[in-house]
C-alpha cells in the first residue's frame, strides 16, 4: 500500500497535527514503510476468529454512586496554559 500526500494531510487534519509540505512528504515515506509492515496481517485468514480487545475479558465494574474526590479545581487549573475565574480560556468559538 502506498499513501498519497493528500491522504497524509487528511489524516493529519483529523489528528489535529499541523504538518508543513516538507513534513508531509517525509512523513508519507516513513508511513509507507510502516504500512508495508502492517500489511503482513492481510495474508492471514481470520474468518470466524473472535476479535480480542483486551487481555482480561472483564465486565465493567460498577461502584457506589458516591462522591470519592474532593474539589481540587485550583490545583488542576494552576497547570493550565490560560484560565480565568475558574474557566479554561481558548480562542473564541462562537461569534
Amino acid at each position, binding site marked *: 500500500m502506498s*499513501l498519497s500526500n493528500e*491522504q*497524509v494531510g487528511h*489524516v*493529519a*487534519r*483529523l*489528528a*489535529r*497535527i*499541523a*504538518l508543513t509540505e516538507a513534513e508531509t512528504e517525509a*512523513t508519507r515515506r*516513513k*508511513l509507507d*514503510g*510502516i*504500512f*508495508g*509492515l*502492517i*500489511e*503482513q*496481517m*492481510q495474508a*492471514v485468514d*481470520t474468518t470466524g*476468529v*473472535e*476479535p*480480542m*480487545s*483486551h*487481555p*482480561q475479558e*472483564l465486565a*465493567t*465494574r460498577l*461502584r457506589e454512586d458516591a462522591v470519592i474526590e474532593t474539589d*481540587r479545581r485550583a*490545583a*488542576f487549573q*494552576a*497547570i*493550565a*496554559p*490560560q484560565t480565568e475565574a475558574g474557566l*479554561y480560556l*481558548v*480562542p*473564541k*468559538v462562537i461569534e
Partner: protein
Amino acid sequence: MINASLKTLRAALDARQISSVELATLFLDRIQAANPALNAFITVDRDGALAAARAADERIAAGQAGPLTGIPLAHKDLFCTEGVLTTCGSRMLANFVSPYDAHVVAQLKAAGAVCLGKTNMDEFAMGSSNENSWYGPARNPWNTAKVPGGSSGGSAAAVAARLAPIATGTDTGGSVRQPAALTGITGIKPTYGVVSRYGMIAYASSLDQGGAFAASAEDCAPLLSAMAGFDPRDSTSLERPAEDYARLLAAPAGDKPLAGLRIGLPREFFGPGMADDVRAAVEAALAHYRALGAITVDVDLPNARLAIPAYYVIAPAEASSNLSRFDGVRYGHRAAEYGDLNDMYCKSRAEGFGEEVKRRILVGTYVLSHGYYDAYYLQAQKLRRLIAEDFRAAFAQCDLIAGPTSPTTAWGIGEKTDDPVQMYLSDIYTIAVNLAGLPGLSQPCGFGADGLPVGLQLIGDYFSEASLLNAAHRYQQATDWHLRRPEGAA
C-alpha cells in the same frame, strides 16, 4: 552500599549502620556525578528525596519499617508525581508538575521508599532505544555510544550504573524487558491488570503495564509486591488478593532447585534473526537451567511472527485516542501563536509531540478512520486472539517459556533512528507477551561479542510472577551475571 542487594541494605538500615538520609545522599551524589554522561534522569529531586529519607529514618527508629522503608528508587517519568515535574519524555509536558500521584507512586511512598528522581524515556513510551526523548537519549552504562534500550531506558541505565538500587518502568511492547536485557539487569512485567495504571500516562491502554527493575530477581520481588494490588480507579485493575512475590525465594536451593520445571522453547524464537552471540549466551543459560533440574521442550507459537504488525495497529490506534487529550487547553504545551481554536490544537500538538509520536498518532488515526477499521483494527484484534491462543496451547506443554529478550545486544546511538521499521523489529520477542497480557521477565545471561549484556526472557502463564521470579532467582543463585557491573559502578 552502592552494589548491595536490598537484603543487605535492609539489614544495614535496620541495624543503623547507615541512615536512609546517608543512603539517599550516596545515590544522589552518584547521580550528580554520572548523569551528565548517562542522561538517565530527567529530574533529580534531592530535596524531596532527603525529606522522604528523614521520614523513613523516623519510621525505622520507631520499629515500623517495611521491606522498602528507606530504600532509594527512581520512577520512570511517566508516573505522575505530585509536585514534581512529570514530562513523559515529551516537550508536550515539559512544564507539567503533576497535581497528583500515580497509584504506584503513592504505594511506594506509603511503603517508605525514597524517590531520587524521574528517569529518561522515549517520548510517551514510544520507542525501543530511548532516542525519542525530547531530553536527549539516555546512554548505556556499558558503552555510552550505545543505546540503553527503551522505552524505560533511563530506569534501566540508572539501575545498571547503580545510580539507584531499584526503579519502576512500564512495558507496552517490551519496554521493561528489552532495556533490562540491553543494560544487563533484571526486569519484570507482570500480568496485565496486576499494577494499576492510575496516574501512569497512557500510551496503549490495553497493553500498558507497570513493571520493576533491579539487579536481581530477588530485588525485583519486593518492588513488584509494593507496586501491585487492586485499585478501583483503574477500570482494568484486577480484584485479586495481594501477593508476596518473594514468597518462593527463601526455600533452600539444593542441587536441583528447578527439578521437574518444564521450560518451553518456541521454535519461532530460535530461528534466523537472532544474532550468533545472543544465541550462544541464551543456549548456555538454558543448559544451566537444565543443570538446575529443568527440562526443556520444544513448543510452537505459529502466530508470533504477526505480533509486530498487529501491535503496530493496536498500539497506535489506542495512542491516537489517548493522546487526543493533549490539546493545549488543560495542561501541557500551548503554541505561542495561533489563530482559531482548531489552529491552536494543530500547532500546539505539532510543536509538543516529537516525530515518532506524531507518526504513531497518524497511523492510529488512519487505521481507525472510516472504511479502514475492519481491514486493520479488527484484523489486528483477531490476530491478537490467535497469538494469545498460541500461548495457551504452549502452556499445556510447559510451565514457562524461555528465549532471547532481544535479537541483538545494544546498538549504536543513531544507528536505527532513520528507519522506524528496523527499530520496531527489535521488539520481535517481547511484543506477543503484551498482546496476550502475560507476565514476562528478562535477566542477564552473559555478554555478546562486543562486551555488551545479553538478556534471557522468561514468559509465564497468567499470574505466575512468583514462579518466574523464583526460576530467575535459582539461576542467579548459581551464576553471577547479575552481579557484573559496568565500569564506574563496581
